[in-house]
């Protein structure tokens, strides 16, 4: 194995058991009380897994690509890949992103301005293959050498020296899942090149042409959502049980007898939650119900398959799955004759259903779609619900979900709420549109296979964990309860794993949760504290 810093894109096609060995001693250092934190070794695959699954990039596997059964199968996959690559560059097959892809592929001057913006690259101790430009450079070389006329002539001189073989593809597929698509790299690029987009296009090529994708996103994700109703496996019957339980729980916790509206035609808002809230954080669903009922908002949930789960993992890897889910959701909203669809606290659902799907909706399905944050701001800041900020008198910080801030420009409403209801609210550095990803973006939060969670907790979430520790340094000890407000279901999933990995509840009393829980916790109409200070 070569020393880590000597890898070049031209080495990507060279045969080796594993390109690079991650070295925890080089990982980003953490502030107190984690100065002496021992990351231990990276979790390695079992010998059996190594024999079956592609792992030659960094010893980690996100996708779990089986090794080809024969050289012929490997060759066929390489040929299929090249065919898919051609499609990626045609307007019929890839109208969805052709223009931005071409712009990014043809105009990167490789100035490396993006390096320091990348939380994965910097957290890993500047691991060469995690450079934002690296995977784009590999793809660029394959295009230039294998698709363009005369591409093999003086390929090394022209910077197109790469060997295309099954190993190259397996590494490239895995490498496309070492980036959270947070797009900080694109934001600092002086030319506007978007290596996050290139990463997504690589994922898409593998999914749409070769059927290679992550099971949690595809088979157990979008496909299950379309078939059963939710990627969690929750069908409409289970939903009704959960709603009934939620109503009972609200009554028990708050004394409020609230009936959660289902399939109410003509309501102002069809509220769509990430189904993860129903199963893992039902307090979020309950808090929304309490706020809306007390404020007199006209709203409803849908009990129709897909209509009660705002998740759309297609955003992360496949245009068709993205469109299928968005169109189904729009059709359900039309059927209910609601005035607008309101997105709950889920970042990728916001982005998928609002700006991204905007251009797959034919006129008859172009339903109005809104974020929950302006409405919540209106209710809290215009005193349509009464709050007592002293109930939230503990340190609170806000995590900005990338999809809501950097990709949609929803930055201030949630802050105005927090400033009003949390006397000890403080900002991370940087924040807003310059925030760092939680480390679970682009589907990482739900990817639990093999040794990927170990990589996610140690590397992709590390920068965010450092930010959280930094912002609470004035009260970092376990004697003070602290709250990370993460108004996004996927981010909360990541925080559950990340804070758990670092034992941050025991060591620092850092809890995470949504925004609406904080609002209800401060509401004068709710007599008992709503936030339960136990880590889950």
């Amino acid at each position: 194995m070569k020393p880590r810093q000597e890898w070049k894109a031209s080495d990507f096609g060279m045969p080796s058991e594993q390109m690079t060995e991650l070295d925890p001693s080089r990982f980003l250092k953490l502030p107190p009380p984690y100065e002496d934190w021992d990351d231990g070794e990276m979790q390695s695959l079992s010998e059996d897994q190594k024999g079956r699954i592609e792992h030659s990039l960094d010893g980690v596997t996100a996708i779990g690509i089986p090794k080809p059964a024969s050289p012929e199968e490997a060759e066929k996959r390489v040929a299929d890949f090249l065919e898919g690559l051609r499609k990626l560059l045609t307007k019929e097959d890839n109208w969805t992103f052709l223009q931005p892809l071409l712009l990014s592929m043809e105009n990167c001057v490789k100035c490396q301005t993006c390096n320091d913006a990348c939380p994965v690259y910097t957290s890993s101790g500047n691991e060469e293959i995690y450079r934002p430009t690296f995977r784009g450079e590999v793809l660029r070389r394959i295009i230039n050498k294998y698709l363009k006329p005369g591409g093999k002539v003086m390929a090394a001189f022209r910077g197109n020296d790469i060997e295309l073989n099954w190993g190259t593809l397996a590494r490239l597929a895995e490498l496309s899942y070492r980036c959270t698509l947070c797009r900080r790299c694109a934001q600092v690029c002086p030319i506007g090149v978007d290596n996050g987009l290139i990463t997504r296009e690589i994922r898409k090529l593998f999914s749409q042409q070769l059927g290679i994708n992550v099971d949690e996103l595809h088979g157990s994700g979008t496909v299950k959502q379309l078939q059963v109703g939710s990627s969690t496996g929750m069908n409409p019957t289970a939903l009704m049980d959960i709603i009934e339980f939620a109503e009972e729980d609200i009554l028990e916790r708050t004394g409020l007898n609230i009936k959660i509206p289902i399939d109410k035609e003509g309501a102002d808002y069809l509220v769509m939650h990430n189904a993860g809230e129903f199963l893992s954080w039902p307090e979020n669903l309950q808090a929304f119900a309490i706020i809306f009922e007390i404020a007199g908002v006209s709203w409803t949930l849908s009990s129709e398959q897909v209509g009660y789960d705002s998740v759309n993992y297609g955003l992360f890897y496949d245009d068709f799955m993205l469109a299928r889910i968005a169109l189904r959701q729009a059709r359900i909203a039309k059927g209910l004759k609601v005035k607008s669809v309101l997105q709950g606290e889920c970042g990728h659902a916001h982005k998928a259903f609002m700006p991204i799907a905007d251009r797959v909706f034919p006129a008859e399905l172009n339903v109005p779609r809104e974020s929950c944050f302006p409405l919540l701001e209106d209710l809290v800041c215009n005193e349509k619900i009464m709050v007592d900020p002293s109930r939230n008198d503990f340190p609170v910080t806000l995590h900005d979900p990338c999809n809501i801030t950097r990709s949609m420009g929803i930055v201030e409403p949630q802050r105005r709420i927090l400033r009003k209801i949390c006397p000890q609210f403080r900002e991370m550095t940087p924040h807003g549109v310059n925030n760092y990803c939680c480390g679970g973006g682009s589907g990482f939060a739900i990817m639990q296979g093999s040794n990927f969670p170990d990589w996610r907790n140690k590397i992709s979430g590390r920068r965010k964990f450092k930010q959280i520790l930094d912002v609470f340094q004035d009260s970092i000890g376990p004697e003070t309860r602290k709250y990370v407000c993460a108004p996004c279901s996927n981010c909360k999933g990541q925080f559950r794993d990340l804070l758990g990995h670092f034992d941050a509840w025991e060591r620092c009393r850092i809890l995470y949760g949504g925004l609406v829980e904080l609002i209800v916790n401060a509401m004068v109409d709710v007599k008992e504290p709503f936030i339960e200070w136990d880590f889950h």
Partner: protein
Amino acid sequence: MLWLQILVYLALLVFGVATAAKIWKYASAPIHLRWELYPVTADREKKYGGSYYEEMEWWKHVPKKNLFHELLAMGEEILFLKGVYENNRGLWYASYPFHLGLYALVGLIGLLVAGALAEMAGISVAFASPSLIGVALYCLTMLAGYAGLTLALAGCVGLLAKRLKDPALRPMTSPADYCNLGYILTLLVVAGAAWLFADPTFSAARAVAGSVITFQPLPETSGIVMLELALFSIFLLYMPFTRMTHLFAKYFTYHKVRWEDSPNLPGGPWEGKIQEVLNFGVSWQAPHIQTGKTWADIATEMPQEEGS
């Protein structure tokens, strides 16, 4: 000298056609899914990066595009390389003089053409010219030429040194990249030598510009000025085929992607364009895609692998 004249026109033709073709390729691409990055420049009141999505019923609050604000932001980027300054200061010290020098040298070409036209109109382009226009053209030409050359030379050397020494840049730099920078450096050195030793007031260069725009034979001049012209022509020949076209691409990456920010409102201009792309045929072949159908058909059907 005929060969040089042919080379000059060939270079101009190839440069023009190839550049136009590249711009057309980007401009004629179909609509794409929205992929903005905030802040966008349209809303100067929300410099922190806020958008109309911060409003209830946001569709009633979509701000009109403000070309002036967009140009202002682009101007900062182009004139000062603001992004590089803020995010990659070490590179900016080399990249900024290089770019500024190139802008001045592009300006020099314009001034040489203007000077040639002025002389055709009987205006003497000289420091002692009786015409103010002649004096201004002379002084500006001298300034653009020598300042541009100095800045571009310094920047080019700096960029070469950065690419050779910086461990972040070196692995991503190909031999062709070095040759490219080396060629520009050679061109600048030759141009500098030509100006200092053979054409210090740009009178020969102006005469060349005059002959090119009037399709007259090139004037007799020193060998080094001819070499400068030949090297510059070759540069024009290959420039559109390199990443140096980021100069043009930047317009699209910013205006058509990052800052596009144009929602599909009912009855608006996007509806027709969306209908058009939804009718495109699809040939992706993964099991969950019904290859051969239109985009709209596939997007409204269940994944094929599930047998629906």
